[in-house]
């Protein structure tokens, strides 16, 4: 999954990036509201972590304008102000969640995951498909009871396909959701990962729609 962190404090942004990448998220960072708004309206992120106090354009404005432009990306507001009025304002403007500074990393990560899960329409953290049991919280996959070892990228692609169960996911979408803006990878890397997944989980799991993308049937 790919996240956008909009935070002007460089140290905090770096700490967030570090922690989130460790949780297998691809992370982009924007240091001011203008850049943040541009990124969120031009890239398909799975979630946005948005600081409220930003230079150029404050977080409230970024949120309002992004929603006005039609973005449905889940947004978690991060802020030093934790008054009731601020929470209400944020939620009314279209935020999906609100967390005050300072916060516990584990809570931030859990909330981000929950937001993404809700956005994809899922209810539980454990998904079953055929003989596969996927625990999206622990990032583990069981096949017929036995643990399957997947690389971080492989797991992420699998999770994306599983969450989009029944819907076609194009190759470029997979690419956008797995890699951050700085990634320099070969263009066939997605095909390589899909092949690996098929090897590990079974050839029938992921169906190719020639020329368009992949789908896991529900």
């Amino acid at each position: 999954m790919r996240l956008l962190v909009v935070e002007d404090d460089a140290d905090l942004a770096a700490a967030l990036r570090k922690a989130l990448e460790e949780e297998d998220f691809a992370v982009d960072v924007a240091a001011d509201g203008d850049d943040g708004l541009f990124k969120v309206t031009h890239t398909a992120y799975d979630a946005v972590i948005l600081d409220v106090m930003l230079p150029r354009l404050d977080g409230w404005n970024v949120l309002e304008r992004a929603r006005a432009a039609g973005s449905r990306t889940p947004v978690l507001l991060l802020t030093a102000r934790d008054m009731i009025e601020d929470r209400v304002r944020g939620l009314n403007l279209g935020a999906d969640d609100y967390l005050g500074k300072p916060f516990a990393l584990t809570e931030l990560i859990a909330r981000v995951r929950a937001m993404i899960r809700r956005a994809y329409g899922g209810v539980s953290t454990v998904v079953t498909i055929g003989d596969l049991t996927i625990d999206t919280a622990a990032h583990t996959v069981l096949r017929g009871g036995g643990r399957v070892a997947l690389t971080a990228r492989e797991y992420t692609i699998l999770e994306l396909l599983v969450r989009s169960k029944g819907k076609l996911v194009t190759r470029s979408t997979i690419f956008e959701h797995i890699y951050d803006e700085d990634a320099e990878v070969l263009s066939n890397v997605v095909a390589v990962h899909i092949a690996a997944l098929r090897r590990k989980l079974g050839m029938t799991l992921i169906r190719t729609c020639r020329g368009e993308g992949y789908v896991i049937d529900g």
Partner: protein
Amino acid sequence: MVESLRTKLLLWYTLIIGLIVLTFAIAVCYGFWRSLVEDVDRDLQTVAFVLVEGLRPSESGGVDLELSRQYREFIGRSPRTYYALLNGRGELIDWSDPDVQVPERTPLGVQNRDGRRELGLTAVNGAVVLVGQDMSEARGRVLALAEQVAATGVAVLLLSLAGGWFLTARALAPAARISRAATAMAQGDLSARIPIKGTENEFEHLAAVLNEAFDRLRLAADVQRRFTADASHELRTPLATLAAEFDWALSRERTSASYRECIETCRRASDRMRRIVDDLLTLARSDSDAVLIRREPVELAAAVREAVALLRSLAEQRGVTVVTRLETAWISGDSSQLVHLVLNLLKNAVEYNHHQGRVTIELRVGAGRAQLSVADTGIGIAASDLPYVFDRFYRADKARSGNGAGAGLGLAISKRIVEAHAGEIACQSTLGEGTTLNVRLPLIEPGSIKRS
């Protein structure tokens, strides 16, 4: 407290009026009595002389009273006057009223006896004429007057009491109003003010002064509230960095290089917090200073020279030349704050400058204003940042959270100081070329400068 002052005033006032009325009453009654007594004496004398004239010596060595008919009538007309005639041997030979008691010894001259006033005169052959009048009527008249005066006096007293009650209420009403507003303020209603009706009496001046004090109180309370909000705010981001780094470091085993980097980030965050705390305290002090500013004549060029001297070593260290072109300018304000102002501007000009850069400070007077400009040849400020440079906590160099980046309060403090001195401050800049800060302050009238 107002009530008892009013009562006290009223009691004293009543006491004084009462004494005056009493004195007046006594004087009137006594004066009346004396005039009545004088009338009686005159009466007695007249009758006594008539009788003395009417006494003729008789052959036996005594006296005979020969009074003409007019005289008899005259004497008869004084109803309460009586007389007694005694011959040389002290025998009563004639009297007007048989009931009159004649004293054993008949003294001469005027005397009061038994509520009667009597006059004794000697006549021919040792005879003594005694004339007297009963004073009870006179006494009655004086008493009647006294009663009337007393009644009037009491009425006057009561009226003045009523009048005084009304007057003190009116006079002390402003005090009650002031007391109410002050109580409201003390109980936490910072918007309470004393209504001023525009009359010029003594209480209005007091009310105006108190209102001003209340304004300052409220300002100080606002300042304090804003400070605590800002402090809590600004510190939360570095705290979040610390929390995130700690969580990350502890979540699993890391390489020592990772730990090291993590610790360094935490160090930077804690340094940042310390700087923010220092700057916030400075800001709070300058905020409250702005409320309680000292106003004396200050020579601005001297303040500039002092700031330049203080920053000399830093400028030398960074290879920056400071040039000054100063005119004498007298303004009204606080000299230490003004030095602080120039110091802030100068510090920015030196720190955001290049090696071998230049800072030019100019101070000119004209049109009732002192114009101070601090221009540097430094890195400048982007046009998009320019409108925000005086905002609290605004940092144009956002990406740098490492050494050297303050909390963004220097210019906010400077603006505070300038505005507290009734001046204006503006910033011009070109990215990559330099920045100029322009300050305008009102000059004092030259005539009112008192050299201390």
